[in-house]
């Protein structure tokens, strides 16, 4: 089965120019997503996951943040050369995004109906015989909001966190996008609600065959919902491959350490494994491989030269000197 590639990111670099210096938030990231496929991007906080996503929709915080180089090919067209006006026609229609905090991501001053109907209004739909209202009710049903006819008249503050996240999902899928980016969509939800929401995302994906990029720091979520995974560290992707391969045979020492740190059922160990040290300050990255100060297998060359990207036998990729 050959699936069409929807999104291909090539050598993306997004830097922040601050008074303290240049922060290389995203430093040469490449990955791709196919139709109907879900890709997980996992990493610690501040490793550049969210900025990668915001770069794709060209909403990097201005004026400090700037996309320096790279290509973002969406269905073959480079989004980075598009004008802002053109870009607007892609947002919401072809690429949608769910933000991480449902409590602050809806406008507190407008009703749910008002906010969910906006995508349809942008589409230029006319409101003959309550056309838009019907669409709003439909999409709210799709994200399983009970009695949408009544609830859509409410304001966001009358909704629970989980329900608000569903409303955001409804807004995101309203115009049937080809790609949905979910930026840690379950971080602020209860575990049970998390599970419901992830299942909802998977169902929606199966119905429409859209591509899904799931950003998370929770490897459990990756294992549960994704087909492929990219592990990010300090603005770079250090390893990528199918979820099975990466989880069972991690190639990069960082991935290996992450897997080691997962709690295991039936293990007698009392204390969980932990990666020593902290993620590096993006303003002052160590020379060579960014991970060497915390790496147990670091060699001399790791401290001076960045490792190349190595293709693995199982189809994945990793960048580490150990693999050379």
């Amino acid at each position, binding site marked *: 089965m050959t699936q069409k590639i929807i999104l291909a990111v090539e050598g993306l670099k997004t830097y922040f120019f601050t008074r303290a210096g240049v922060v290389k938030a995203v430093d040469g990231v490449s990955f791709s997503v196919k139709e109907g496929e879900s890709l997980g991007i996992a990493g610690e906080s501040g490793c550049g996951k969210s900025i990668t996503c915001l770069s794709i929709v060209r909403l990097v915080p201005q004026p400090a943040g700037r996309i320096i180089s790279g290509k973002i090919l969406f269905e073959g067209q480079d989004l980075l050369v598009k004008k802002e006006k053109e870009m*607007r026609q892609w947002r919401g229609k072809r690429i949608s995004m769910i933000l991480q905090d449902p409590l602050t*991501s809806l406008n507190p*001053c407008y009703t749910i109906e008002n906010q969910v109907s906006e995508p349809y209004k942008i589409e230029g739909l006319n409101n003959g015989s309550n056309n838009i209202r019907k669409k709003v009710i439909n999409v709210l049903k799709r994200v399983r909001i009970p009695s949408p006819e009544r609830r859509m008249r409410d304001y966001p503050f009358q909704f629970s966190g989980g329900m608000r996240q569903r409303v955001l999902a409804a807004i995101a899928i309203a115009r049937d996008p080809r790609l949905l980016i979910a930026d840690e969509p379950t971080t602020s939800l209860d575990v049970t609600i998390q599970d419901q929401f992830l299942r909802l995302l998977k169902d929606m994906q199966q119905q429409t065959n859209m591509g899904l990029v799931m950003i998370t720091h929770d490897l459990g979520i990756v294992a549960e919902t994704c087909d492929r995974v990219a592990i990010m560290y300090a603005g770079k992707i250090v390893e990528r491959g199918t979820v099975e391969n990466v989880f069972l045979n991690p190639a990069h020492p960082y991935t290996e350490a992450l897997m080691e740190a997962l709690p295991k059922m039936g293990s007698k160990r009392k204390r969980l494994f932990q990666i020593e040290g902290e993620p590096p300050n993006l303003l002052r990255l160590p020379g060579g491989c960014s991970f060497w100060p915390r790496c147990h297998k670091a060699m001399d060359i790791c401290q001076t030269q960045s490792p190349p990207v190595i293709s693995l036998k199982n189809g994945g990729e990793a960048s580490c000197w150990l693999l050379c």
Partner: protein
Amino acid sequence: MRRYALKRVILGIITVIIVSMIIFVASRLSGDVTYLLLPQDATKEEVGRLRAKLGLDKPLPFQYLYFLKDAVRGNFGKSYRYTNREAMEIILERLPATAELAFAAFLMSVICGLLLGVLSATKRDNFLDTLGKTFALIGQAMPGFWLGVMAILIFSVKLGWLPTSGRGNISHLIMPSISIAWFSIASILRITRSTMLDVLDSEYIKTARLKGNSELIVIWKHALRNALIPVLAMSGIQLAHLLGGVVIAETIFSWPGLGSLILEGIYSRDYALVQAGVFVISIIFITCNLAVDLIYGVIDPRIRYD
């Protein structure tokens, strides 16, 4: 919304009652009016007779009740200075002039402040923003009375473009209203700019942009409505400032309004006139603040459903 509105209205009425007490007590604190009304060589009996006639011989709480009873009917007694005319009648005669000036200044501050504030926030750190910030700085640093005098010097005396004083057509309105409004414009501009900057950084603005909305809708629909609450609060405060500023501007520009009338009343201890005038201004002020409160409810559903 109805419960919220009712609560606000009741609070407004309570405020009016408290204001009436303050006006009553404050005017009695300013000294004995009989010495002003009678010639210097008046006998004790004559003074006593006048005090009894004006009700000044009774204890203060009783005086207040009489005052309140009449005040409810709009009767604040006769002015001592404008002999034999009802104080309220004189006040209402002058009210339109003040209303015109205050309304012009208020409208100017809200519209200019809001517009410049939004533009300054959305065009952060470019020419417009710098212009806005400079304008605000100058406005906040200059007292209105000085600005008024300088304006007369430049535009009336030197250039002869605008009339120096009095009320008439729109050219008379320009200098007095600007000289009171500038400070308020600056305050509203600054608060609009800073709340807009906060709001524009929020997640729901990102959501609005992610939908593919144009900047016009993002700013004027999604951001502005959320930034309006602090701006409205500031407008309410500025209204008080404007009503105060009107007194000064009316004096400088000889504007035949309430402010200058009340000022004269204070100089001549014209109880009735001052009481009626301050009462009317207070009512206007309380009504405007009530309106501000009600608008809060319209703008932000969280307030209305509280």
